[in-house]
């Protein structure tokens, strides 16, 4: 088993095919989308592949150390051009192909007009602890 992060972006990813902002969908389309996301997570829990899913607020700030005795430097809220993560799901699956398959299914979540969004999701392997047997 290997863990993969499926990353969803507010901004920074290539534009999805069905690119209508969510507040311009109908309330029913929004509900259908939410339902799809919940069903997807429930299905992964049932198959024993779900690890974690979290949504992030779009508000964020960059912070860095600015030397001894000084308050940290902050930069933000993010400028419009910056990449912004909307949330993630972590899955624990047998193969990389399975992770891709799942990301593909998630990307088909319904959007405006009830049609799949075709949004880009980023799939990243999580680094693991070293195995016991290495030779």
């Amino acid at each position, binding site marked *: 088993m290997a863990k993969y992060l499926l990353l969803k972006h507010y901004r920074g990813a290539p534009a999805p095919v069905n690119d209508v902002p969510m*507040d*311009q969908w*109908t*309330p029913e389309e*929004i*509900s259908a989308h*939410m*339902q799809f996301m919940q069903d997807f997570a429930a299905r992964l829990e049932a198959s024993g592949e779900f690890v974690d899913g979290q949504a992030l*607020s779009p*508000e964020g700030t960059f912070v860095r150390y600015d030397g001894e005795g000084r308050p940290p430097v902050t930069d933000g809220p993010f400028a419009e051009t910056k990449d912004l993560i909307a949330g993630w799901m972590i899955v624990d699956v047998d193969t990389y192909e399975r992770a891709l398959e799942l990301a593909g299914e998630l990307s088909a979540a319904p959007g405006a007009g009830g049609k799949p969004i075709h949004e880009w999701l980023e799939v990243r392997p999580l680094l693991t602890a070293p195995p016991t047997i290495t030779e």
Partner: protein
Amino acid sequence: MSMVDEALLRTLTPAVIGVLGRRGADFAAAEDAVQEALVEALRAWPDDPPRDPKGWLVTVAWRKFLDAARADASRRDREMRVEEEPPPGPGRAVDDTLQLYFLCAHPSLTPASAVALTLRAVGGLTTRQIAQAYLVPEATMAQRISRAKRTVSSVRFDQAGDLATVLRVLYLVFNEGYGGDVDLAAEAIRLTRRLAALTDEPEVAGLLALMLLHHARRASRTGPGGRLVPLAEQDRSRWDTGLIAEGVTILQAALARDRLGEYQAQAAIAALHADAQAACETDWVQIVEWYDELLRLTGSPVVRLNRAVAVGEADGPRAGLAALAEVSPGLPRYAAARAYLLERAGDLEQAAELYAEASRAAASVPERDHLTREAARVRQMLRP
């Protein structure tokens, strides 16, 4: 095989800690020992339920305590002392359980620590259950609790504490309950009920009434898929009339004592909502009056915001917007409140925009989804 009566275990916990305390164990050691006894009870009781659960817990906890004391060579002095099992000291002025409430909510603790310690020592939950409920790893929660115990280790156990911090902790448990297999809202009610039986303070009754009145609406508060259902749209036939009646009775008795506090005032507002058969029958004029009281008691900007929404219902959306003008726009839910009032005032364009803005500032997924849906609903009305 019978199920373990977890409710009973939780009820007995503070008393067992009290017994160990009277036998000479300090709070931290007694609490650890009782926690170990609880974990063992959860394991052993299904196959072999004890005839005297409290006696069983005291025996096992005391053995755990002695084992720990013996295992720690540096604590030899204390071991000698506890082996003698001194008779209980002079009578305490305050009940042991009440003392535990004070200790676990001691003002020197952060709110998160006080919540965790209260749930464990007063509530009798295991570290694992508390960790699951607050979505943190068990080791993290264990550390939080042991740090909290170190913080209060020098606090004398026989002094009356600050009831206001205890109430705040219980309010937090009720209001910020998450998930896991423990119903934190029900747990908060149980702990507040017990506190109300131990004290004679109208604000304790006020908090209990507030919890009961909100709990009564729980089934109607969420729709399919956990979606948020606003008060005005809730199916009132699903409200728990038994809990409402109990909450109102407790509140009335508290108010009659004429020592108003913020929890009684909040409960009064909840009671007025509970009293309306339909949303349109809500007595908003009286609700605004209670918000005025609440504002006088707390000066809280959040209360000012909620009051503005109530003014909008009582005197019309323009009056509500005027009241909202006195609230800082940086406040959470400001945009949502303004969007709501603007929609009622007929300014759909701005309302839709503000609902979308509010959804981006939402602090929870159900709230975010609800506000996104509101933005979409208003936009739909704008389309020809």
